């Protein structure tokens, strides 16, 4: 079949579908042609179904609540500037006027949920260090690394998953994770239980239990790794690079 020489129209259609597929697979804004015809729309929807079916493709970003909150805030704060739509559509089930009256109180309720989560320490270190970076950006996946019961308060546990090496730390009930790689020259660090700190195996460098620089050569804190707990398991946010292949 592939040896049939394709018609120029087919080549054009194949190029357009390819651009869309690439945009879905790479996470770029969807490259959808402006006004898809009836007999083309099914191809694009099917492409979306298949491209999003690979394991982990639909994993939410670790800061989903904060991101959705920002968008809810935008929507409820600017009722006079609805998003432009290419053509008029039937009135949505929610009226603008209703939204503005509901918005003040109710939007803050939703925002409160996100803050509430942050306060509860789900996945976020309680204090933010100015030099502590996220090890893995928004394009990652959750990896199951331990049972919650395996990391009781006070425990520190090494893990290796999703292309990263790190330590799970349960600091008095607050769970977080930091990279196990020293920011000085890339040696591994070990947990020094006697002094409750991380020491570099190669050079003179130490970090506190949240990864903050205590002394020695490094200029930066150990990068943090996002964590979450679900159904008695601890997950860390690792890389997505072909790990599902």
């Amino acid at each position: 079949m592939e040896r049939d020489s394709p018609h120029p129209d087919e080549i054009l259609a194949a190029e357009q579908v390819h651009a869309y597929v690439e945009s879905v697979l790479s996470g770029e804004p969807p490259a959808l042609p402006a006004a898809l015809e009836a007999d083309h729309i099914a191809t694009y929807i099917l492409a979306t179904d298949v491209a999003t079916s690979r394991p982990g493709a639909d994993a939410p970003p670790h800061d989903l609540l904060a991101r959705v909150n920002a968008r809810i805030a935008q929507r409820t704060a600017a009722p006079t500037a609805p998003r432009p739509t290419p053509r008029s559509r039937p009135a949505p089930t929610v009226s603008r006027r209703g939204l503005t009256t509901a918005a003040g109180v109710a939007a803050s309720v939703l925002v409160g949920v996100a803050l509430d989560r942050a306060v509860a320490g789900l996945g976020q270190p309680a204090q933010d260090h100015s030099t502590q970076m996220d090890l893995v950006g928004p394009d990652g996946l959750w990896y199951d690394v331990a049972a919650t019961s395996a990391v009781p308060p006070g425990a520190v546990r090494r893990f290796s998953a999703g292309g990263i090496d790190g330590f799970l730390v349960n600091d008095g009930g607050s769970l977080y994770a930091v990279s196990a790689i020293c920011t000085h020259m890339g040696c591994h660090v070990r947990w020094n239980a006697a002094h409750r700190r991380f020491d570099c195996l190669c050079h003179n460098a130490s970090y506190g239990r949240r990864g903050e620089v205590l002394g020695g050569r490094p200029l930066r804190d150990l990068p943090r790794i996002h964590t979450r707990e679900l159904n008695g398991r601890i997950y860390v946010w690792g890389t997505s690079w072909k790990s599902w292949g």
Partner: protein
Amino acid sequence: MLEWAARLRQKEVADTSSPHRTVAEAYRNHVEAVYRFVYRKVGNRETAEDLTAEVFTKALQWLQADRPSQSIQAWLFATARTTIVDYWRRHVDDSVDISALENLLFSPGSDAETGIDNDHDRRRVEQILGALPERESAVLRLRFLRGYSLAEAAQELGTTEGNIKVMQHRALKRAATIRWDGDGTR
């Protein structure tokens, strides 16, 4: 800021019948599932976040108005569906009718209550791939499930990148015509 949130939370917890509490709980419990459901139908994170925000913004209104008898979870996913259909309507010709679009987007047998059923989706994709000619199925597997680039897929299958694009298009077009009854049988 955090103090304010904590106060709000206390107030909310104190009034157990508060409709705000209902929506706040639904948000906490279902935001991830709604996001996943939407992502699978729009294929882009930013868009999925935006439409998820739209669903919960509509939920804010839901608590002000007459509440339907269905559960808030069922309501959220029904709303997610109409929001997804609206998104696609912005990209289609005026001649495409809404019910045809709904049928294309939501195959029979998918779970209307929770919106998401991984096994169902995987079975459906496996069945679609199995029903295609071998080369076309191979192109979709390499490109979509294993993350091969055009060049890598072309090398693997011993053909040109141009041919991969055409095969990819033919495969998707053919797959879109396969009807599925939801049980894995045809």
